[in-house]
């Protein structure tokens, strides 16, 4: 399982919408998905094949058409990877903000601006 493939699989907006629909409907077929999306059934089938290849969905054969379900564990794995990187930067940026604002307040007080919150020209 290559993560690059996982990421390009969920990087496509149509495929993300499909995952959403499969989650909210508890599964679906290419036909049922195509009723909710502005793309052809053939295009949906191709997208499902991509999702299936990276393990984000699994298919069972029920009746005439294959029924797809989201693999929650694999989805969680994909989400977690992005969230970890994003959360790391969120906390770094909060520290940058705190640090810069502390320095600015110090500079304001040194200049004796009085208000303490008057920003520097800029």
């Amino acid at each position, binding site marked *: 399982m*290559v*993560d*690059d493939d*996982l*990421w*390009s699989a*969920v*990087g496509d907006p149509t495929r*993300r919408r499909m*995952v*959403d629909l499969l*989650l909210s409907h508890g599964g679906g077929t290419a036909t049922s998905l195509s009723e909710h999306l502005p793309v052809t059934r053939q295009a949906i089938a191709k997208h499902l094949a991509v999702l299936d290849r990276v393990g984000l969905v699994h298919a069972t054969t029920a009746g005439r058409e294959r029924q797809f379900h989201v693999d929650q564990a694999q*989805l*969680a794995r994909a*989400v*977690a*990877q*992005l*969230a*970890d*990187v*994003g*959360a*790391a*930067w*969120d*906390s*770094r*940026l*909060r*520290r*940058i*903000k705190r*640090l*810069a*604002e502390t*320095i*600015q307040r110090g*500079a304001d007080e040194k200049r004796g601006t009085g208000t303490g*919150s008057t*920003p*520097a*020209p*800029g």
Partner: protein
Amino acid sequence: MEYGTLEREIHIDAAPEIVFDVVSSPEHLREWWPDEAEFRPGAGGTGRIGFGDVTRDCRWMQFAVVDAVPPRHFSFRWTHPETEPAVEGNSFLVVFELEAARGGTLLRMTERGFRERGWDEAKVAAEYADHVTGWDFYLPRLVTYAPKVGAGA
């Protein structure tokens, strides 16, 4: 959103000159990110940043300044192999753009290179660089995981 790029923006009540200094100088970098930082902050400056105790198990990562235009722009690449110059495909590119706004600074940050390098590596780098957890592994969160998450901080 584009999964190959991470985007954030945050408003800071400090002048762009101060924010630029905070995001670009090794002394300040140590206060908001790595435990150690050794690099020349000008364009083309190379060096390294370290995570952990320098006397024991410090993990060093390569760091190369791509561009530095005070007080508007600072960009760097990191995590490339020590023996290679930092280029697309062997490193992550972080770009800070600063803009005077509402008496302070609007700081925009992007990090790209994930698609080229694979997310496992990005995750490993993030884990080494921070001890942050707590996100719900849940799709609705992902969908609303907007570029402006940092803005409310």
